[in-house]
């Protein structure tokens, strides 16, 4: 793994995926401002290294489940940016035919189980998917993401207990971006060591620099090896930072502009990987420009597709309430 993470091809691919998420989210923010996207819209900008790093070590069939800040997870696991953007704009061509929106999107073929709007509800759900992996003996892991804010919900510990008790193949990824909506971790949590939240349940945990895609990949691989060997769950605390507000309608009065600026300048996962590629692999500026162009085109294409797609037929109101 360590060797692969030094390979130019791998690093370029990670860079490209992170950049896709960044540009996609910027475009989503823009479309929100234009009234094309409604309701709640939670952007992932700043946290890209986490999903991209983890996705790079998954095996075919491994599942992903997360909260409502989910666009990055979907793009990381290979879902089509056009159909994700179309869902954000509430169009018939979206992953949920326009009926789920930003917070509720799924792809059975990419093993992405949502997109859940209730804080921490995805934690028992992901544990259940892991339960099914064990039941079916398919060797897969469910990567169950939640924020440090969700980590204060009771059902997280109910899930921890069962996951450990039954040795379920689940990696709990706590994306610690320091703020639960507008409440900082210091103001909401009695301890800030999220990776230690599993100690009472005998679940090992590791604090990881979530702004470094290579470290994310390295530690996730260790966690997944632990799970796949039948030892049960593992907690990864990803130290990260979201640049944007909790949602689009967040005035962000709870932190200073300088705080955000400092992180962007010093810790940005995309910039740092770019610097590394330049320094260690002599990648020239032209190559980054080509990547940038390719990613921009893909995002523009997604936005155009979304804006031009038709709204769902009114008859869709009554479909998918029940299945046969």
């Amino acid at each position, binding site marked *: 793994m360590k060797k692969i993470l030094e390979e130019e091809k791998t690093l370029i691919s990670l860079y490209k995926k992170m950049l896709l998420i960044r540009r996609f989210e910027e475009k989503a923010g823009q479309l929100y401002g234009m009234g094309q996207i409604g309701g709640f819209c939670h952007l992932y900008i700043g946290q890209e290294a986490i999903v991209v790093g983890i996705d790079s070590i998954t095996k075919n069939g491994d*599942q992903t489940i997360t909260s409502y800040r989910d666009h990055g997870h979907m793009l990381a696991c290979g879902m089509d940016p056009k159909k994700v953007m179309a869902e954000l704009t509430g169009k018939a061509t979206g992953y949920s035919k326009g*009926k789920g929106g930003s917070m509720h999107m799924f792809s059975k073929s990419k093993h992405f189980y949502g997109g859940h709007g209730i804080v921490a509800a995805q934690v028992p759900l992901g544990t259940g998917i892991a339960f099914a992996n064990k039941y079916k003996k398919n060797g897969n892991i469910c990567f169950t993401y939640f924020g440090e804010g969700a980590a204060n919900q009771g059902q997280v510990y*109910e899930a921890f207990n069962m996951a450990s008790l039954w040795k379920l193949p689940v990696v709990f990824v706590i994306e610690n971006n320091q703020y639960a909506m507008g409440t900082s971790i210091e103001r909401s949590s009695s301890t800030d060591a999220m990776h230690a939240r599993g100690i009472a349940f005998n679940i090992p945990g590791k604090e990881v620099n979530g702004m470094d895609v290579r470290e994310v990949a390295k530690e996730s691989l260790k966690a997944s090896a632990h799970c796949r060997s039948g030892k049960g769950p593992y907690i990864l605390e990803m130290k990260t930072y979201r640049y944007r507000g909790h949602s689009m309608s967040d005035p962000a009065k709870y932190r200073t502009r300088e705080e955000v600026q400092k992180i962007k300048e010093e810790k940005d996962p995309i910039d740092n990987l770019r610097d590394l590629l330049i320094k260690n692999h002599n990648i020239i500026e032209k190559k980054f420009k080509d990547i940038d162009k390719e990613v921009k085109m893909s995002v523009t294409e997604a936005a155009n597709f979304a804006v031009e797609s038709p709204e769902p037929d009114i008859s869709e109101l009554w479909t*998918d309430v*029940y299945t046969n």
Partner: protein
Amino acid sequence: MKVNILMPSLSPTMEEGSLAKWYVKPGDRVQPGDILADIETDKALMEYESVEEGVVLELSIAEGSENVKINTPIAVIEVESISQNDSEIPPNDLIKDTQDDTKTAYEDQDINNNEKKQLISNEITHSELTEVNTNNITVREALNHAMAEEMRRDENVFIMGEEVGEYQGAYKVSQGLLEEFGPSRVIDTPITEHGFTGLGVGAAFTGLRPIVEFMTFNFALQAIDQIINSAAKTHYMSGGQITCPIVFRGPNGAAARVAAQHSQDFSSLYASIPGLKVIQPFSAADAKGLLKSAIRDNNPVIFLENEILYGKSFSAEENEEDLEPIGKAKILKTGSDVTIVSYGIGVMHALEAELKLNDMGIKAEVIDLRTIRPIDFDMIIGSVKKTNRCITVEESFPVCSVGSYIASQIMVKAFDHLDAPVISCTGKDVPMPYAENLEKAALITTDEIISSVKEVIYF
């Protein structure tokens, strides 16, 4: 001084039990805390300890005796005399009084129960004339057989919940399943309703078919977010990609003397949620056929059982392929004067009322809804068009009850056929009280049904 040892009541709904084993014999000296006997009920096997100090004189009920009513004298113990100073009332008198009182009470109850049992078995036999080979089966056995058959049929079906495995089920509904299917498919969970409900829903998203047992539906309130927001809505939110084939089942409604937090019918609450199906059976055959259908259904199903009905026997033919359709009501009694629409334990009261009304010359049509969502309005409206009068009977609270919705729909769909307003008979608009008389007053009664019928037919 001789003291009678009485058959104990060991659970809120216990009426009788078996004397499984005696640990003492005449001549033995016993201390308080010594185990006298094993008492077995339909729910559990329990040790019965002495509270007396003395010598066993006689065992009045033989080991192995079944159907011993509570408060029946089962043994006599000679206890050392206590001086008059220790007690103001001579213990002998105290015991005698208590015994006489309880004996009378128990006899009343017994007659009442026998009547009910007789009534239930008569009705079902009448309403299912097509049956040839019939056996008696309790609702508990019916539910147990439904699960076992479906688990044999499909290895994706598993059951999880508190005490479903090694304990054999808090109400013995899952009895024997662990032995047959093993711990990977009969899963004892921690006391973690919110967590294991979410876990079950997640497993169902991948195509497994969990049966999640709530020890009672009162505890499902801890898990209501996962039921409503995750189980019911994900199919819609995913544009039809994700299905959630899961059954949530367990006892619902009032049991007996367990008060407000353990006595509530949740039918109308769940029935208001699109994406859920809601079933509440009355008879054993329906319990079995509908549970099997629920397990095979690809949607989340709320399956509401009733502790009081668990032990009731019904005549029913058992056939592995007998599936009852979800969403279809059933006419249990045909009549021309008034339609009584009910479900669950309400049907028991409705059938009692129907018998008494018949004696007064009033012919009531009794409809057992069986499914609360979707409701079989075709059958209700068809019946109302014939009888022109309707009352609904349920155990729920009155505000936004199932009956109030049925009444509104009858008004919309059969207004010109109505000769009287529809009356909804429900439980009272109060938390369930503990005291015996208050509890009785809070529940629906047969008399209330009869007086409501009289009201709508201007009797």
